[in-house]
């Protein structure tokens, strides 16, 4: 078994196509997870018991089942009831929903960490519930939880190869297809690993910076 640099350069454009999709899926999935997580966290605090309980059970259900199964459901089962999604859209929804249930816990902790006095001061200032959230609570809750959120987004990035199971042409899928075409696995799979490693390491540097920038709030 020997390493063939010519083959590497030959398959590189295809793999870079895959990397682009991987990164795109991660970014869109992260945005969706950030929004879904906030929605779940707020709904679980709702005074409406049915909403709070229902969303709570939904989140437990999503968290308690494998992402791969959820992806299969979204891509292969939903068409049975008339919902036909393109692979990348199905993948982003799967990633966003799944990780949204985790980021919801980050939001919950972040919101709980805002001192009770802030809620009371907002009330004494006669701010409405909506203004209290948008001007007082969330601006204080979110910065300290950015590192924890980013951690989940990096974890999500490393799970994107699961999207190959629903025909998304991300990095892993592209590597598999060139490997299956030429019957050479060592170069494509090594490169997949290398791409993930390099991007993860860059992300860790970014994460450290985020922790430094947002990790604490001065009172």
């Amino acid at each position, binding site marked *: 078994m020997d390493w063939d640099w010519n083959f590497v350069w030959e398959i590189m454009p295809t793999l870079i196509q895959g990397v682009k999709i991987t990164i795109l899926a991660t970014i869109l999935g992260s945005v969706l997870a950030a929004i879904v997580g906030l929605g779940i966290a707020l709904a679980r605090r709702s005074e409406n018991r049915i909403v709070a309980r229902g969303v709570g059970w939904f989140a437990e259900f999503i968290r308690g089942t494998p992402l791969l199964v959820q992806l299969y459901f979204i891509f292969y089962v939903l068409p049975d009831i008339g919902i036909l999604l393109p692979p990348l859209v199905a993948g982003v929804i799967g990633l966003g929903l799944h990780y949204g249930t985790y980021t919801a816990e980050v939001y919950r902790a972040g919101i709980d960490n805002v001192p009770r006095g*802030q809620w009371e001061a907002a009330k004494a200032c006669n701010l409405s519930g909506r203004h209290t959230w948008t001007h007082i609570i969330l601006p204080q809750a979110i910065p300290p939880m950015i590192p924890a959120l980013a951690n989940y987004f990096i974890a999500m990035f490393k799970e994107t190869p699961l999207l190959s199971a629903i025909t998304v042409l991300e990095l892993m899928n592209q590597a598999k297809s060139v490997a299956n075409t030429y019957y050479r696995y060592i170069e494509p799979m090594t490169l997949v690993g290398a791409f993930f490693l390099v991007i993860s390491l860059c992300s860790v540097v970014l994460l450290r910076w985020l922790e430094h920038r947002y990790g604490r709030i001065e009172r």
Partner: protein
Amino acid sequence: MPTPIIKVDAISKSFGAFKVLDGLSMQVMPGEKLALIGPSGSGKTTILRILMTLEKIDGGHIQVDGEQLYHMERNGQLLAADERHLARMRQKIGMVFQLFNLFPHKCVMDNVTLAPMLTKGVARAAAEKRAMELLDMVGLADKAKAMPAQLSGGQKQRVAIARALALSPKIMLFDEVTSALDPELVEEVLNVMRKLAAETDMTMLLVTHEMGFAHDFADRVLFFDRGRIVEEGKPDEIFRHPKQERTQSFLKKIIAAGHRV
């Protein structure tokens, strides 16, 4: 005979099994300066928090400025107040907290202008002009752009007073506003309150352990114990000639602890 601006009628409030207010009734006249004193757990802070609608009541009625606070009249019936009614009533009342509770992510100016802009639709320029007047009054005009974390405790509390005043309440509640301060910073906050009392006709209720200040500042002193008002009267009557035994023993303890009366 003017009518009271606050009428508290048979309010009860429990935290779990602990009855913190036990059928409390009191009245406050417009412009009156009231000091609420008593041991911790006696209910004096709780009644302030109830007036600010930070706690729910278990029973009784409160009238503020001629209107029910926790109830609303609909077709001659008294119903529990909804959020809209509470929001309208809160406009009449401002509160300053023991731990300041400034918004740490906003500069001093924004702390003061936020509520007028959001709740009253005041334009930024007008809100900032008013805020500068208020910051000037509390002696912090030069700190408008500072963040709360850069201020001393005394400065934070003075900003908190300006923030509460920005909404022009008729009634101001002060909840142990100097208790969290280093001793050398207490006086600057008390001075602002003296100034406020001298320059405005606002009704002021303060819960305090500063007996000397309460004596000089208040028109009337209420002594709380176990969720009831045990004794009330002019500062001289309460501090120099307390009639009730519980008041006497409380003041004795306070003096023994080194507080000036």
